[in-house]
C-alpha cells in the first residue's frame, strides 16, 4: 500500500466514524464536536485532492464559523434538551432503511460508472491561480460568485432579523 492509500483509508475511517457519532450521540454538544472531526477529515481529503484553497476554506469557514455557530445554538437552546431520552423519533428504523437503500443505490450507480477506476491526472498549471482567475473572470464564474456573495449577505441580514428579540 502506498502512503496515499494509507492516508485515504485513515481519513475515510475518521470521517465515517465521526459522522456516525454525529447522528447517534445523545449529547448535542458532543455531536457538534464530532462534526468538527468530520469536517477536518474532509479538509484532509481536499488537501489530498490538491484542492489546497478549499482545504483551508473548509477549516476556516466550516470549522471556524459553522461548527462554532452550531455549538452556540446548542447552548442557547439547552434548557430542556433532555439528554437522557432517546434522540431519535419513532420512525428511525424506516430512516435507517431509507439511508441504507440510498447507499445501496449509489453503490450500484458507481459500479455502472464508466470511469470508476480513473487515475489522477497531472495537475495542470497552478490550480490556486486558475481558481482565483475563474472566480473574477467575466468569461468564467464572476456572476455566480457575486450572486453567491449577495445571497450570503441577504441570508445573514435575514438571520439577524429573525433571531432578534422583539
Amino acid at each position, binding site marked *: 500500500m502506498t502512503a496515499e492509500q494509507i492516508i*485515504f483509508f485513515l481519513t475515510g475511517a475518521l470521517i465515517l466514524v465521526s459522522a456516525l457519532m454525529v447522528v447517534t450521540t445523545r449529547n448535542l454538544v458532543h455531536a457538534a464536536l464530532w462534526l468538527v472531526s468530520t469536517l477536518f477529515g474532509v479538509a484532509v481529503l481536499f488537501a489530498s485532492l490538491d484542492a489546497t484553497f478549499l482545504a483551508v476554506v473548509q477549516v476556516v469557514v466550516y470549522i471556524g464559523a459553522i461548527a462554532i455557530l452550531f455549538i452556540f445554538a446548542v447552548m442557547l437552546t439547552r434548557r430542556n434538551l433532555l439528554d437522557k431520552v432517546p434522540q431519535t*423519533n419513532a420512525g428511525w428504523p424506516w430512516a435507517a432503511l431509507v439511508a441504507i437503500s440510498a447507499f445501496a443505490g449509489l453503490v450500484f450507480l458507481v459500479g455502472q460508472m464508466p470511469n470508476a*477506476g480513473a487515475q*489522477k*491526472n497531472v495537475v495542470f498549471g497552478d490550480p490556486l491561480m486558475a481558481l482565483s482567475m475563474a472566480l473574477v473572470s467575466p468569461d468564467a464564474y464572476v456572476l455566480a460568485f457575486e450572486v453567491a456573495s449577495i445571497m450570503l449577505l441577504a441570508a445573514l441580514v435575514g438571520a439577524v432579523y429573525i433571531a432578534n428579540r422583539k
Partner: protein
Amino acid sequence: MVHLSWYIFLSAALFSIGLYGVLARKNAIAILLGVELMLNAANINLVSFWRYGNNALMGGQVFSIIVFAVAAAEVAVGLALVIAVYRSRNTIVADELDLLKW
C-alpha cells in the same frame, strides 16, 4: 493509487449517514447537523470529479465554493429560526412543532 470510485464510495457513505441523521433525529439542530454532512458529501464528489477529470477547468472547485456559501447561509438562517422557535414555543423537538399540523 487511489481510484476515483473510492472517493465516490466514501462520499456516498457520508451522504447516507447524513440522510439517516436528517430523517431520524428529533432535535432540529441535529437535523441541521445531518444536512451539513450531506453537503460535505456533495463537496467531496465535486472536488474529486474535478481532480480526476480535466483539472484545467475550475468548474468543480467553483461549484464547491458556491456550496460553501449556500451552507453558511443555510446554517445562519436555520439556526436563527431554531432560536426564534425556541423563544416562542420553548422547545426545538421537531415532533412538538406541530402548529401547522391539521
